[in-house]
């Protein structure tokens, strides 16, 4: 088989895998619907305000509830005591 043909097959294979991921994404979103609903219900029933992403510091665990005395106030680019504080942006409400 000539090299050009082999290359085309290789690119078509890669594109097909990418296309498969789009299809996978579509069906996985549908499949995850019950678990997303479950999380929504939990947020509603428990009056939750934040995602549990970083548990190391209170202002990154409850990012939206952080008061004005959090290290974010130094500057968004300031060196943080806790590593997660360097990754996330300050809460929207504090930027008013």
């Amino acid at each position, binding site marked *: 088989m000539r090299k050009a043909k*082999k290359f085309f097959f290789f690119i078509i294979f890669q594109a097909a895998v990418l296309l498969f991921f789009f299809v*996978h994404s579509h069906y996985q979103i549908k499949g995850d619907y019950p678990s997303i609903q479950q999380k929504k*219900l939990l947020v509603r029933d428990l*009056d939750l*305000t934040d995602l549990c992403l970083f548990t190391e510091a209170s202002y990154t665990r409850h990012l939206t*509830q952080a008061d004005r005395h959090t290290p974010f106030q130094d500057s968004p680019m300031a060196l943080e005591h*806790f590593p997660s504080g360097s*990754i996330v942006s300050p*809460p*929207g409400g504090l930027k008013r």
Partner: protein
Amino acid sequence: MEPWIERQKNILDFTLSSLLRRKGKNLALIFVYAFIVFMLGSVLFFTHALKREASIILQEAPEMIVQRTSAGRHNPIPLQYMEAIRKIRGVQSVRGRLWGYYYDPVTGANYTVMVSQNLKLEPDKIVIGEGISRTRLIFPGDSMEFRSQDGTLLSLQVHQIFPAASELVSSDLILLSEEDFFRLFGGSKELATDLALGVRNPKELSTIALKIAEMFPDTRIILREEILRTYDSIFDWRGGMMIFILAGALFAFIILAWDRASGLSQEEKREIGILKAIGWETSDVLLLKFWEGLVISLSAFLAGIIFAYGHVFFAKSPFFEPVLKGWSVLYPDFRLTPFIDPAQIATLLFLTVVPYTVATIVPSWRAATIDPDSVMRT
């Protein structure tokens, strides 16, 4: 049409043979290129999916949170505030939230301790998140001991564990009864941590917030819209480490493209000279270099994107775990729903494949327009 396709195929054949002659260098190039796309793609997939999931889940968050601040810090709010706020026209419900943090010296983890107004629990019973169960190796029926504010040990029985699918919101959560909350943390029953409000008409939110701020100047109001905005801008490219990750990848890519654009190797120049000498047109040489750029960039781009998707949505982003974990002992084990944005992939394609291909053509055009004799002699 047929001769045109055949010409492209022939030139592509020649391109591939030429690339295979420098197999080691080109494979290394594809590997580095694919790795940059993989890093950028992983960041894009992860942040987009997380933001989308947050925007859906947190739509059910309280419409308004009223905190009391004292000396710039969040302080418990008196329940009398609740009565006054309830009388404001448009306010549908006011609930006092009781929550706080508990540091577990056994594991070194921080837990979020909360009382639910809707799910009433019997005293001495708790519901815990999957993350706590995993870290402490405790299961329904087991007891968990806490050191209360007066130094006594409080033993509470695990009644239930939150479903693993909800770890993104409940991993570090401990739900207990109001009675146990006060036994653990002390405090007055006349105080709540903050207030959660329900409002009849969302258009009235800002008016109600203004009225509360006027009535109680020591309060701070957090609207649901702000909660959603916070998670929409989380991992913002402008903020924190994200700019360093993206800038690092971008500079690596610029160096890669610059290396190509700054000039051709002696061997490549000689190859162009020979091709011109045996009768290739300048346009043929440019076409050859176009295919060369496309072969490398397209195959590396597709490989990078494929691995990025697998990394984020199948393998749960193990490369990001150390960064996200930080010093946390308790880290939620969640699988993101693969919300992907085709526009982001298209942007990444445009920002990587096009500049690289162009960067390959420009120096070749310069080499192809000079005299083949002088190119071969140098």
